[in-house]
């Protein structure tokens, strides 16, 4: 569920507002009243299959995959070329798996935790945004282009 947080005076019981409708938590039938209000204001329990625009949704998902291919397609060559042959296997594997195993593998849980903490269904996206922005800056300033290096060294 998506919601905003609002500060209430100290000591007052929490109130949930759906549109203009306020439902105080100290009502005995709070949960039922809240569910009814959400349903009345058109929050769907499931995505209506007849309303899903499958074509455009697939195209949008494809755009996401194409961004994946931009950052993942060339990275094997880049990593191989960054490290000398003597230590290439060790040197490349550790940053690759800290990145993909830790920052990537725990990404879904991290993003949903951020969503749960803030109430905003899009807020989890800040996590990949901040990390990708950091990589953009660090990569731009400190990592060399390597396509022409001699990897036999």
């Amino acid at each position, binding site marked *: 569920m998506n919601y905003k947080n609002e500060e*209430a005076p100290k000591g007052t019981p929490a109130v949930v507002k759906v549109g203009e409708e306020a439902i105080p938590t100290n009502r005995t039938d709070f949960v039922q009243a809240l569910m009814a209000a959400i349903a009345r204001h058109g929050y769907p329990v499931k995505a209506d299959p007849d*309303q899903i625009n499958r074509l455009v949704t697939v195209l949008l998902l494809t755009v996401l995959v194409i961004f994946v291919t931009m950052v993942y397609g060339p990275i094997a060559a880049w990593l191989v070329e960054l490290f000398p042959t003597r230590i290439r296997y060790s040197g490349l594997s550790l940053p690759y798996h800290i990145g993909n195993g830790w920052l990537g593998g725990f990404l879904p849980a991290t993003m949903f935790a951020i969503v749960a903490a803030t109430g905003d269904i899009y807020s989890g996206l800040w996590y990949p945004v901040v*990390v990708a922005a950091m990589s953009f800056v660090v990569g731009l300033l400190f990592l060399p282009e390597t396509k022409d290096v001699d990897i036999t060294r």
Partner: protein
Amino acid sequence: MPANVGFIFTLLAFAAGFAVRPLGALIFGRIGDIVGRKYTFLVTMTLMGVGTFFIGVLPSYAQWGIMAPVVLIALRLVQGLALGGEYGGAAIYVAEHAPADKRGYYTSWIQTTATLGLFMALLLILAIRNVMGEAAFADWGWRVPFLLSIVLLVVSIWIRLKLNESPIFQRMKDEGRTSKRPLKEAFGEWSNAKIALLALLGATAGEAVVWYGGQFYALFFLTQTLKVDATTAQVMIAIALALGTPFFIIFGWLSDKVGRKPIMLLGFALAVLTYAPASSVNIFKAITHYANPALESALATAPVTVAADPSECSFQFKMTGTEKFTTSCDTAKAAWSLRP
């Protein structure tokens, strides 16, 4: 098994495989630099295949009690360790064989395999589920993909046994120029450790979040946030993966012409631009618009607000589903989880 204990083991089993990957990188990276690329990735792939197959024959909790989830986690650890050594070997082996001006193109074929793997897994699970039905799939059908993986293992071992060592590594080894202590050299000497740190911060970190965000989170966003039914979501993701996969090759090939850096940086920049919640071209908001327009209009016309004394509000992330919420703020927010 009690539901909350089961969920903890589910989370642990999932996390264990990812958590130990850097350890696998150290163990097998060292062997790969001392003994060789070919030997190492033969070992890691066998470990991966065996670990995967044994998940498929694992006795259930009813038969084995607590040993079942404990062994499952152990097998996930084996898989994670093996993968930590596997990727580097594959990338290096291909790159050290490739012509200098085609390294990006050659290695990009490896880069398709993770996505193709997810694609094939989705198709196989969809097919098995539809053939045997939901109940049989939950009962024993989930074992089939794990058992079938043995075929891939046998084929891969057969292929890899016939391969030669990487020529660049072989020459270095013949001349006695390989490192005796690669871990110390790679991470104990600042000139090399600096490259590893910059590669993490400037390349793999961004790559990982763009990848897992665009592929895995997108799937969970459809099913968990937008409540699209699982089959529809999986079919749409599978089609997108199939359409997008050729671009791994295209960008790998292009990186041989224009360089690795510009393509990677452009990918990071586009992801920042289209993932940022505040962005006017946010792709996830667009997906909401096209996949669940009713939710989008409810969000716009009747936004929900929780007005509460902030000192009463605790962090809303229930690990086990057993925590008790006592304050009125927590009551308000916990109500969401009661939604069907």
